[in-house]
């Protein structure tokens, strides 16, 4: 039995404790946006946020989580596909096949929190998810566009408050 807080909802899951979080999310909760790519934390397709930290869910068992940890999957990133990263991805047509993009988007969203104005070196370091279609340059451009838009939105908010 595991109790997991996923996308703001507590789920009681009847699985073996060594079941990886990825497979609990996909097969028990039924959210399939988080992808299986390698099972060994090498590709990043399974990236989710755990208390805001990008985490490769394929290699951590459900037993290592408590209900106090807030797990967010791609389905829970925003209600209407309006996270700055999602908007930038849409504007630049970042995805090709799209299979890795849930993980890329989750990694990029966490990157923006850590580095609101990321440098190329920071993008290289934080964005280590694999994309076989080769969307890397558009991902880079998407991260920068999202950072720019988020900054713009922030200063707009400030201006409105002032």
């Amino acid at each position, binding site marked *: 039995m595991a109790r997991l807080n996923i996308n703001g909802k507590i789920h009681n899951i009847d699985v073996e404790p060594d079941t990886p979080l990825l497979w609990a999310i996909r097969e028990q909760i039924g959210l399939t946006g988080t992808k299986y790519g390698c099972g060994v934390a090498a590709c990043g397709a399974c990236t989710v946020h755990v208390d805001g930290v990008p985490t490769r869910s394929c290699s951590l068992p459900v037993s290592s989580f408590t209900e106090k940890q807030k797990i967010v999957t791609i389905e829970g990133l925003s209600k209407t596909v309006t996270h700055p990263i*999602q908007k930038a991805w849409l504007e630049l*047509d970042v995805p090709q096949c*799209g299979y890795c993009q849930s993980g890329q988007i989750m990694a990029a969203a966490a990157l923006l929190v850590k580095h609101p104005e990321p440098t190329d070196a920071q993008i290289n370091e934080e964005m280590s998810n694999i994309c076989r279609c080769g*969307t*890397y340059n558009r*991902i880079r451009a998407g991260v920068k566009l999202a950072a720019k838009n988020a900054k713009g939105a922030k200063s707009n908010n400030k201006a409105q408050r002032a």
Partner: protein
Amino acid sequence: MTIAQKLSRRGFLAGAAVATGGLSIGFHIPTAEAAVGDTPEINAWVVVKPDDTVVIRVARVEMGQGTLTGLAQLVAEELDADWSKVTTEYPTPGQNVARKRIWGDFQTAGSRGIRGSEDYVRKGGAAARLMLMQAAANQWKVPVGEVTTSKGVITHKASGRSLRYGKVALAAGKLEAPKDVKIKDPKDWTIAGKPLPRLDTKAKLDGSQIYSIDFKMPGMLNAAIKETPVPGGKVKSFDAAKAEKMRGVKKVLVIDGNAVVVVADTWYRAKTALDVVNIVWDEGANASVSTASIKAMLTEGLDAKQAFVGNKKGDVETAIAGATKKVEAVYRYPYQHHMTMEPMNATAQWTPDKCMVWTSTQNAEAALATAVPASGLPIEKCDVIRMNLGGGFGRRSSSHDYVRQTVLVAKEMPGTPVKLIWSREQDVTHGTYHPTTMCKLTGALDDKGNVVGLHMRISGQSILAGLRPEALVEGRDPGTFQGLNAQGPEGQFGYEIPNLLVDHAMRNPPFRPGFWRGVNNNQNSIYLECFIDEMAHAAGQDPLEFRRKMMKNYPKHLAVLNTVAEKSGWGKPTAPGVFRGISQHMGYGSYVAAVAEVSVSDKGALKIHRIVAATDCGHVVNPQQVAAQIEGSFAYGLSALLYGEMTVKNGRMEQENFDTYEVMKMADMPPVESYPVPSGGFWGGVGEPTIFVAAPAVLNAIFAATGKRLRDVPLKNFDLRKA
């Protein structure tokens, strides 16, 4: 009896010539009379709903390359549709069979998605427009010549009347299809040719896009599989006592004599149980094969007497014997894996009356042709529903082994839908690998440094021999010579060399080869373009000028070469420590060239600073997606150059996952400046061609930087420090 023979006996046989990598691959799909159904369609390509939604049928498959959007643009263009109302759908191969292959070929490979179907899909859109116009004219009782169309609206200017397509679609669908259909001149395009956003992006941003691996059905079970690690091996025995007692496990079985399958309620339980099944393999004849034994086999072919000829001109032997300077080199290209992000998988449901398959495939007709014999049912009782692909790259066209296995398992559990997912380890060790070849090149230079002779002896694996031996032409695999043929719209050797011989000693190791994005162009372009560079240096000439001298009769090849030379600033100074390399190639109907700028540190670390790439694909349907394909081609091609190698030990592939089979990540990815330079008058592909120039441009730049000529792949195996 094979399925093809069975069908042939019943008089239904139609040879479906399916082009893959420039080759004609025959598989057999029958045609039969069948009801068209009650779909409110105007024709096979276009459905207009009462609310004006335009559904464009797409026969090829979207796997990331943008074909879905591009083909819809072409149809919508001829239809004068309102682009904001356009959606798409895939017909099934069963429907295609029932309608005498009205949608043509489903194969999505060989960079053919657009170029292989642009003509008939455009005509399909144009015909539907004429029918809509006729239906409106009939309603208004005016001559059809007086009505016009724009953005989904038909107008009769004289009377000031107009109708939206949705209002006359039903009537239009009942009209006879026009026989003579004219299509637009690309210069008049307003939807095609424009950098429109893809139709399928949004669902890829919130996890809502359903890939094959995500497909669910009520009551569905999940299966995991372990197949013999040695090609040709069998299951000798297995002990599933422990696995069978594990939670959720429903069945443990052997299929095809060479694989053990566990079926459980969830896939993770199936996989966990499979891990504790003790399997003893009968390894068969290939248990001692190694990378070294394969290399020895190929090396022998480099000087073997018997070889298939691909391109021959003049007398190369005499030219080499009389050369002022002889240049010689041996190159090698290893086995590589496709590494699609989504591992192979399929879902099947079998009953004595029906076998349905849901899967990601590059060729749903071939998937159906695989499912039918596995199901034991007639083709009329089988169908394949296409799911979104998490990458294809040729793997999902080379073999539908995963479909066969899924159907075999489902057949053991009648009525129960079963999804079989290959673990990444099963996937990597049971690929259809990029074939391994070697090439010995001998060049003859005269006293002015002109190339007067070139012999390219390729030795190595034939894809056809491994996948479809019946398609060999008197033993010869024409695909081996991709990009090296004397002529043809598919890929033409781009240099004037008076004495030339390109031949192939076929040597087939036991590992199954496949069509791997770019296919044989990948290594052929390295062999030729790096060796041209070697000869240029031997002649003491600039590699660009050396090429240009031999390209006067190849203006399209030359034009893309000139584009990258100009855009990269070839001949002008680079930043300190940065060096350039250049290459050109023609394949899949397109002309491509690239310049790479690299530096190599004192410690041998390679940095690719910049790529400049040009592609002449004749016509561009969506410039931003062509640019995406060019960029992606460098990620794919440079991954192969930097990291790509499957090694063999004790008859087994040694790499099993992304941790041991590395691919390029963000930090490796160079900026790519892409220049689509469509010259019109022909249709070339874009999904693969630019891959061909990625590796040779970088290798030539590494030579410029270090004086080291690397003739083997991948670079991770070599010390790049200065010679």
